[in-house]
């Protein structure tokens, strides 16, 4: 990682800690639990006999918090024991960004632009997520998939998805 040189020891230690899967997983569970408790703060709890809207959600959030803390502690113990951190995984920003973006674009355009154009956009943006796809290959794949999708969903199943942009 490029910025590690001038970040100093404490930050390196912090990164080491966060690199542990259990530390991150524990944090994730705790954050979700606390967020759930915060969101459900106004839900009526009721009693065991007449459970309100908030009874089960709050119960679950407390249980999740109770599970997240030991997972976090487990991870911190691993750090303390000085076990070497797991090898850093390959960077995943590219697939995360482009797979997500392609879906968001598809979702936003399918109703206005229709099946054909939104699939083109989906494949076009989605193809960036992988390395090594040539433009011509992508175009061929898109054409094939559009034909396939049209055949299965419009012709075969008769779904009422617009095929072309509605003017």
């Amino acid at each position, binding site marked *: 990682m490029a910025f590690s040189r001038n970040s100093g020891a404490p930050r390196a230690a912090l990164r080491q800690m966060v690199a542990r899967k259990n530390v991150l997983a524990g944090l994730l569970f705790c954050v979700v639990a606390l967020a*759930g408790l915060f969101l459900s703060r106004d839900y009526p709890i009721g009693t065991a*006999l*007449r459970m309100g809207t908030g009874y089960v959600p709050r119960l679950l*959030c407390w249980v999740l918090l109770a599970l997240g803390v030991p997972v976090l502690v487990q991870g911190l113990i691993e750090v303390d024991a000085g076990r070497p951190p797991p090898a850093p995984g390959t960077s995943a920003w590219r*697939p995360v960004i482009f*797979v997500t973006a392609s879906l968001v674009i*598809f979702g936003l355009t399918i109703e206005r632009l229709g099946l054909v154009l939104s699939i083109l956009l989906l494949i076009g943006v989605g193809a960036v997520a*992988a390395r090594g796809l040539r433009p011509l290959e992508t175009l061929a*794949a898109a054409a094939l998939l559009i034909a396939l999708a049209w055949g299965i969903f419009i012709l075969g199943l008769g779904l009422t*998805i617009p095929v072309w942009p509605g003017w």
Partner: protein
Amino acid sequence: MELFNNLALGLSVALTPANLIFALVGALIGTLIGVLPGIGPIATIAMLLPLTFHLEPTSGLIMLAGIFYGAQYGGSTTAILVNLPGETSSVVTCIDGHQMARQGRAGAALAVAALGSFFAGCVSTLLIATFAPPLAVVGQSFGAPEYFSLMVLGLIAAVVLAHGSVLKAVAMIILGLLVGLVGTDGNTGATRFTFGITELTDGIDVATLAIGIFGLGEIITNLSQPEETRALVASKITRLWPTREDFRRAWPAVLRGTALGSILGVLPGGGATLSSFAAYALEKKSSAHAAQFGHGAVEGVAAPESANNAGAQTSFIPMLTLGIPGNAVMALMIGALTIHGIQPGPQIMTERPGMFWGMIASMWIGNVMLVIINLPLIGIWVQLLKVPYRFLYLAILLFCAIGVYTVSNSATAVLLAAFFGVAGFVFARLECEPAPMILGFVLGPLMEENLRRAMRISSGDPMIFLNRPISLGLLIGALALCVLVALPAIRSKREEAFQEN
């Protein structure tokens, strides 16, 4: 004989042209995704779940079931020929299957795997037909407290038998339960965790969650890893039939694998993967040819491949009879039922006998089709292995997108699935198994409903769960499992069971 009457009814449903076609489609898709690494039955069934909305419920279920057990057949092909598991349930098949292939016995290994799977499929179909009705009768006598306790036991067992950290798996269940709460509270009409988004008031659809977590999450995970090289050992399979010696040694292993797989499939958390790992371990420990394991022992292919098919099919028993999903695939099947407004549970057998028995009969028909699809046509599937993942994922991406859009015809569902896709990737990176989350998600609303009902029966006294003998027994079972898994001896055994190299 009632069994034969029932099976005759089932066959009359399963043999209609439409259902035959859907069984074949399911078997073909199952084989395809089984052969292809990088996409598994959970993601596929999730993607196709919205489509079943447009089909007859029986046809839809027949197709989805075919995908699940078809994947068990297809998974062995890749394991044997490429030394990559097409499915997690064929991980152990790689060990000896690939060695057999390198010794020029690829055909024999493929045939043993397919025939073993077929035998296991036939036996487990009969097992379902025999044991499902009495279990459904037991289920019908259950009240709200019993159901709640049964779900607790089911969820705990699912975690204990799954691999990885138990603590994290339980947390994933709770996470699933919480996601299941999003939407309108059925009892009070108030909305929960909707963030003011109107589309969320109806709750999150199981297909949206599963497509995101499994379908899209897997795409991101796979793309973030360098693509594996697929070296085929034999692109031409010359001799398909095993030798007499192979047969002699494979038969008992097939029997043992089928028996073990059938039992493990019924257990919550069981199913195909656990069955194949356990069967391989059993063979290796009990075989007279123990030294040959890892060097192309035919038992090492026969046992796990029979076991994973048996386990895949018997895991339908608790889903069909009690409405309790034992694994993520069964959770999606329950989702398919609810799409059609069918309440899963013991009443399905009496209220919809045609669907119930039709699906069981279709499993046997599907297995016959699969042997044909997998043995004579093996060459075609081998060719498909040459399609690189960078093309495959574009198709998966598209089917995920359209599938999730058709769930509710709303863009919100697509955005939500994209969010769950990133979540699925994060879970995979943090080694948090997503399968328990789907179980929790599906069981969540049912659990809350039964908890509330039980509390109303008892006027708010939680002792009701302990006062009722069946409920008490189920809860003791759940507690015993928790204690067991905490014992150090069991713990190391459990880790060992999933690390077979």
